[in-house]
């Protein structure tokens, strides 16, 4: 006990211990991350599409109506929330990143508002998407409203240049 106290009386030793803790922490975190990546790869091998979670939504969830449908204020608010909470994984334009899939794909854009709300609420924990029920229900609906507004953008860009959208939509 005395040896433990004596060790921490020297500021140099305290600094050394702190550096040791940081190095250990980084090593531990990177090890844990590698393990998580391995687990993620294993999950992808089960043959299910990244978008399979949409199909998991129960019938009751499909039928839920978006209370903000057609509300332009909700689209703007949803866009702000998307940027704050979702863009890091799904990309600023929802086109997807290495961390998360594109939300411009047909599977997402054809889903009912209730289904998107259900996926947002429950997350896809096994595949790395956290649950987002910590956002109040109206905020989650605002995000859904924003996501659905992307469909219009997709269609508009399709009329300007059909090819890139077609390419996106036919990814197997």
């Amino acid at each position, binding site marked *: 006990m005395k040896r433990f106290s004596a060790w921490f009386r020297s500021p140099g030793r305290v600094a050394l211990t702190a550096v040791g803790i940081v190095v250990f922490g980084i090593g531990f975190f990177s090890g844990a991350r590698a393990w998580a990546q391995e687990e993620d790869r294993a999950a992808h091998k089960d043959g299910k599409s990244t978008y399979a979670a949409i199909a998991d939504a129960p019938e009751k969830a499909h039928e839920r109506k978006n209370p903000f449908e057609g509300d332009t204020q909700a689209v703007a608010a949803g866009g*702000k929330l998307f940027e704050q909470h979702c863009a890091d994984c799904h990309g600023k334009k929802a086109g997807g990143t290495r961390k998360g899939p594109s939300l411009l794909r047909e599977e997402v854009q054809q889903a009912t508002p209730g289904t998107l709300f259900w996926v947002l609420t429950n997350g896809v924990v096994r595949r790395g998407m956290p649950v987002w029920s910590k956002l109040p229900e109206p905020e989650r609906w605002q995000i859904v409203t924003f996501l659905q507004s992307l469909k219009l953008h997709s269609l508009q860009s399709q009329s300007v240049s059909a090819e890139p959208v077609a390419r996106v939509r036919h990814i197997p």
Partner: protein
Amino acid sequence: MVACVSPEPIRKRFPGHILMALILSLLLCMSSLVSAQESPYIVTYDHYLEEPGSLEVEYFSTFGTQRGGNNFDAFWTEFEYGTTAWWTTELYVDGQTTFNDSTIFTGFRVENRLRLLQREHLVNPVLYIEYEQTSGADKIVKEVEGHDVESDYAESNALLRKEHDHELEMKLLLSSTFKGWNVAVNPIVTKNLSPGEPWEFAYAIGTSRPLALKASPNRCNFCRENFIAGVEMYGGLGDTRSSGLRDTSHYLAPVVAWNLPSDWTVRLSSGFGLNDNSHRLLLRWGLSREFSDFGEIVGRLFGGRP
């Protein structure tokens, strides 16, 4: 991205500090930030884990009044990392200043939180396992255990630090969110790993709600949606030799969190002792910031895929 600003100069005789400052600068320069929606609780845990790959760095301070001794300011830093969407791991480093006495390092804690169910349910359980190695001078009062009472903290630091605790702590975090309200209940069991020590029990409960449930279309600092207010209550429940609400301390603490669009979260809490065994006041504040791509940066440092 944040501006790449190095911390202020540090005395040359502590090369370890310079290394730490460099690591911190590197992380600040390389990390992008995400706006967090953090709960206001300081003692209670809800079931929401850190986003995968994100590191949240948090600093907390607790000012406590002390009858029969000197008031104190205990502080701790948390490094909270989202390993997966169902597993969060965390490192705490504790210290304290007792007025008219000294400032000392009091120990560290490592904890893991594991989400038990994949989807959201009415009640969502998360398993919390912590190992802590602290001295008797640790005063952060992150939880009240067994028969912890105010007089335990009245001695001088020189005396208190002679006691050394290796503890295993387990909590079942039960939490539910409905109509914007979060209710969290944490039963706690602690075992000092020294031989002959009993199992100790404790509790923490909390409820909170954002001041507005709907987001405004514009970025704003003072929008009601950025504030989450609530109240938490925590205390001891005795041990295997004598359990119950008596001969221990209990606190009631209104709490508030301010989630800024600039990616900072500020938390405030004023805990009031509910019986004569409790500190009259535990005034707490915390500041935290989330680094969303910490996992990728570490991966790159260790030769992972870009």
